[in-house]
């Protein structure tokens, strides 16, 4: 903390002078020099507060205060009981609602599917790094979906995965029965997550490629000279060298899955079929807008905030640990 410590001469001093000018102008001429010195020291002391004030105020006024309002709102009622204190009723209703518990289960499913979402860009980046034929083309092609809006991607896959769409025609051509990709509660969530991974793995791929750039090529050459097979090179040289990159991709992919699936869900399934593709954020939107139960939606938001807090803490812990390893 710089507060109270004697600051380095250049930066804060300049700020102090500028801040003092206005006051100096209204003071009378006698004693200006003496006072200037006093103000100088005071300005030095104040500078840190002034400098952190915008950040603190933005966080407090635009983040923490609304958050507190939202939590407070979640203890009030909807409809006839608008504005009344209802205690934990909303939370009881929430955990009684099969839609909400299903949405939390789907969060769990996303966590389980995380390794797949990380492995896809990891493997493809490895192939590009190992210069498979056409690797230059793949590098740009793989990134392409990442620049498309979820709404466009959702609409395209709606057509592809329609019951009478091309995906089922392909299956039919090889003699497999049609699958109602988005109409069967057993497959719909996987279909949406699959599309999400397809749409976003380009970002992870770029991070992986950046990680590969820092790998020591001589290590791989040495392993090859020693007669290591490709899988062994990957397992014992590439993966350990990339541990920090992998951890970073894990964290960002998890955040992406938990916070940016709304567009795809909205376009592809609308939470259905049978409520099988609800995620908490979709549930919040649905209760607030479609069911006009904003207080219940606030309660769901508070629960989601708690879930994200836990996930975020775990991720911070992972990142910190990886930082120590170096």
């Amino acid at each position, binding site marked *: 903390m710089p507060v109270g410590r004697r600051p380095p001469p250049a930066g804060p001093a300049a700020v102090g002078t500028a801040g003092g000018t206005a006051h100096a102008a209204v003071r009378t001429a006698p004693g200006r020099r003496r006072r200037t010195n006093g103000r100088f020291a*005071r300005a030095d*002391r*104040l500078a840190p*507060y*002034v400098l952190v*004030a*915008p950040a603190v*105020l*933005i966080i*407090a*006024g*635009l983040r923490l*205060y*609304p958050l507190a309002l939202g939590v407070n709102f979640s203890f009030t009622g909807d*409809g*006839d009981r*608008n504005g009344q204190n209802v205690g934990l009723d909303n939370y009881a209703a929430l955990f009684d609602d099969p*839609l909400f518990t299903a949405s939390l289960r789907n969060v769990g499913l996303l966590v389980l599917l995380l390794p797949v979402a990380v492995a896809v860009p990891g493997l493809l980046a490895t192939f590009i790094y190992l210069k498979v034929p056409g690797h230059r083309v793949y590098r740009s092609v793989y990134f392409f979906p990442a620049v498309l809006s979820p709404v466009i991607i959702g609409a395209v896959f709606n057509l592809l*995965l*329609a*019951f*009478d769409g091309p995906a089922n025609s392909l299956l039919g051509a090889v003699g497999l029965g*049609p699958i*109602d*990709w*988005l*109409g*069967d*509660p057993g497959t719909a969530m996987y279909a949406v997550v699959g599309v999400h991974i397809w749409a976003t793995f380009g970002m992870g791929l770029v991070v992986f490629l950046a990680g590969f750039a820092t790998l020591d090529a001589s290590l791989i050459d040495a392993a090859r000279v020693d007669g290591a097979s490709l899988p062994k090179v990957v397992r014992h040289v590439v993966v350990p060298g990339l541990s920090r990159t992998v951890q970073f991709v894990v964290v960002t992919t998890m955040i992406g899955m938990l916070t940016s699936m709304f567009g795809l869900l909205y376009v592809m*399934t*609308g939470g*259905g*079929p*049978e*409520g099988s593709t609800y995620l908490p954020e979709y549930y919040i*939107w649905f209760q*607030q*807008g*479609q*069911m*006009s139960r*904003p207080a219940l939606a606030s309660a769901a938001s508070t629960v989601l905030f708690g879930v994200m807090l836990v996930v975020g803490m775990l991720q911070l812990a992972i990142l910190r640990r990886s930082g120590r390893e170096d």
Partner: protein
Amino acid sequence: MKRRALWSTALIAPLALYGCGSAAGPDSSEGGEEGTLVVWDWKSADATAESYIEQAKADFAEKHPDVEVEFVAQPFDQYYNLLGTAIQTGEGPDVMLFNGGGQLRDRTDALLPLEEYLAEDMERLAGWEAFSDGGHVYAAPVTLQGHPLYYNKALYEEAGLDPEAPAATWEEFLADCAQIEEATGADCFALGNKEGYGIQFFMSGLGPGILTPDEYDAWTAGDRDWTSPGVKKIFELWVEAETAGLNNDGVNSTAMFNDEFALFDAGDAAHVVGLMSDVGHWKEFGEFIGADNVGVMPAPLVGPEAAPVLPYDGGIGYGVAEWTADPALAADLVRSLTSTAALEAFYADAGAIASDTTIDASGSGPAAAAIVGQIPTGKPALHVALSAETLELMGRLSQQLLSGSVTVDDALAQLAESDGAA
């Protein structure tokens, strides 16, 4: 030390106030302002509604030349979210558009009872029930929305059936469907239940052929027996239609808007429970299969004592916000928005069946004429009586019924519980 704290407080305080100011949202001049009325809807930006809005504005300007009217067209898929936020903060538009039924009834707290202002229009307009709750009228109907059973006369002809004599009973209907499928390959029903709307249309479109008039009236009056044989039959038929292969494939992944209607438009299905106004209606179908090929038939009789009627309600209507500065002025705008001249323009351009019973619809083809002819005997649709929450549950359960993961009895028990709690 103390002095330092004082100084920092003095410096930070204005910044803090500034921060609050920017967090307080847009200024509160929207609505309420002298001489300006703000209207929220999702229609006024449509080209087909242009002349309607012009007529309404002209009518209002004649009565109140000094008052300016500002129409704010919101995107429909976000409309109730935005409106919910406005209601929560207690400030927003003076006049707002609503869908009849649950969407309006869930928000009557934020609306002004209008019966004293609209007394003169009660006779001229139809469809008030969907905008009333607890003995009060909260909005004036603009269009009528209903669920006629449409059929494709060309497919009937191709299958060797008389297109002017559609089946009157469910058995005949099934036989006709089998004949059409064999001759043309078309499915019996076009059905999309991705959003869970399919069951609502099915219930309202075919329910009049299942429930007795007494059961029907009791249902719409709020006295609903979910375990009665008639109600159970509706859901059994829903399952039966799927298992008997009457529907197109992939019902649960087919969007009603507009994949279901596209199937009917393309002649891939012989029947569809459609709408009367806006979309999925006689005008749209007519553009694809020819206005003369669009037939409207009463629900086939399933229960022997049923007496099929056209199910319809007020479709969309304008209500007045409870927080408006001058309720009489806002109500006058609602009256202008439902004036005969304005509604005539809406009917002609948008192809909506307008709420005004004095408009002549005979020039719009046989289907529109058939619908308008049935309005005097029509009754409110079955699903419109249900709360938004029950409808949402019914949508989910209907998907489970199709996939076989819930039984009809179980679904009815859950619906009865939800309906009872509402």
